[in-house]
């Protein structure tokens, strides 16, 4: 049984099914209703830890398969980091060489190349950029709606509007889950409930280091194709991506305290508008359609917690994705299916991501937290 029907829960169910295991998902609201439907659709392997790179490279292979198997929109349209400060350019040169050593084809490009990738951009404040041609974007709507339909067709259950209340254990083993629709018996239970994972485990006296950090995004009306890559302005921690439907989806960091309620803030709209109209003056005329808030379920080392819980047979966690859970959902699904059916993941780097790392002080080291 899986608690949570976001990209993580659905992909765990999907890759369990590939191993012949039929699962039940309990989703409190409707599939995708958590952060999955709020995400910015970006997918990349250009990280600065071995663990993230290994998981994301596998995920990128799987995204291509999901495109064929489920008809999910997915495109390797690249990422572009805009750099306007000398120190950022120096730092990115070291990230690029780390990534290249690990098989991720990022490269520093000059402004004429930036213009080629985003023809309408104003480059006067820029020094250079970093391009990742292996990165891309996918539709969270397709991923959720198509995998959900597929799972149900193949005999799995996706229970909508069913809330998990309490995990029942006996003698260190999982018995099942008490839900709003009654008791569901299961020898293996996966918590894929983002920040709510913390609340579920609290009742078992287990504390999980995940904090919800509010994030903001808006989307404009749809326009014709103007650029393919997801673009990040590094000095202001802002991004813009044109969805395949044509809308521009924009995000930008404003000061937020973990645990604060995500509220609509004019400060966000002002900052995001200022940053992106400077690079794309035509955007002043674009119409903003929707503004929403969500959160990143963030861990101290910005890496997810995926794997079993020591001493609690049959209980697994897949949460704490720190803003990158959509892109890695396929490989996380595969890793969790390995853990559950074989007791060990095939991607060895994933062994470093279980909960025990916090107790043992083995946090994942990363040169930079990237977006």
């Amino acid at each position, binding site marked *: 049984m899986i608690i949570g029907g976001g990209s993580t829960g659905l992909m765990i169910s999907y890759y369990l099914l590939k191993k012949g295991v039929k699962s039940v998902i309990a989703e409190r609201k409707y599939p995708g209703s958590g952060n999955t439907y709020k995400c910015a659709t970006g997918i990349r392997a250009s990280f600065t830890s071995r663990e993230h790179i290994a998981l994301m490279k596998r995920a990128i292979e799987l995204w291509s398969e999901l495109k064929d198997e489920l008809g999910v929109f997915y495109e390797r349209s690249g990422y572009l980091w805009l750099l306007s400060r000398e120190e950022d350019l120096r730092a990115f040169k070291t990230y690029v060489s780390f990534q290249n050593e690990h098989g991720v084809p990022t490269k520093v490009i000059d402004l004429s190349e930036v213009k080629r990738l985003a023809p309408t951009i104003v480059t006067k404040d820029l020094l250079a950029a970093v391009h990742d041609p292996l990165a891309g974007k996918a539709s969270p709507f397709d991923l959720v709606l198509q995998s959900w339909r597929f799972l149900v067709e193949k005999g799995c259950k996706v229970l909508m509007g069913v809330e998990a209340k309490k995990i029942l254990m006996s003698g260190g083993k999982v018995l099942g889950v008490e839900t709003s629709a009654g008791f569901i018996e299961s020898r293996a239970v996966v918590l894929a409930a983002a920040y709510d994972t913390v609340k579920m485990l609290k009742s078992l006296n287990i504390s999980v280091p995940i904090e919800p950090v509010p994030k903001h995004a808006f989307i404009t009306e749809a326009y014709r194709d103007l650029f393919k890559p997801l673009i990040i302005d590094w000095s202001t921690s802002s991004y813009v991506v044109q969805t395949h439907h044509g809308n521009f989806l924009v995000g930008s960091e404003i000061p937020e305290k973990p645990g604060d309620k995500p509220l609509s803030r*004019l400060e966000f709209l002002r900052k995001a508008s200022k940053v992106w*109209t400077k690079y794309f003056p035509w955007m002043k005329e674009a119409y*903003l359609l929707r503004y929403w808030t969500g959160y990143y379920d963030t861990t101290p080392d910005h890496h997810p917690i995926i794997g079993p819980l020591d001493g609690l047979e049959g209980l697994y966690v897949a949460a704490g994705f720190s803003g990158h859970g959509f892109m890695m959902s396929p490989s996380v699904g595969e890793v969790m299916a390995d853990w559950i059916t074989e007791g060990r993941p095939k991607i060895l780097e994933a062994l470093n991501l279980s909960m025990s790392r916090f107790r043992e002080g083995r946090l994942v080291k990363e040169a930079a937290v990237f977006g």
Partner: protein
Amino acid sequence: MDPEKVVVCRCEDVLLSDILKAIEGGYRDLESIKRLLRVGMGSCQGRHCLPIVARVLAKATGLRIDELNYPPSRPPLMPIQIKCFLSDGNEE
């Protein structure tokens, strides 16, 4: 009336027949149908079409309106030009 000839969502060009097909395909809540067909995601934000889709869905499934996951309204109430958020309305 022929469902192929009834436009339910004029912003995103969705027909009554599309809605009926989605319901037949097993989607039984407005939030999911919205993301499957983009109905309600156009410039009027579903003000014109979502009440109609809700009625069609309630009729087809026997569910009550409060069981359909009616999407919440998100700001702004009307599309606003990005330049309105720049301090002088026309910042370079």
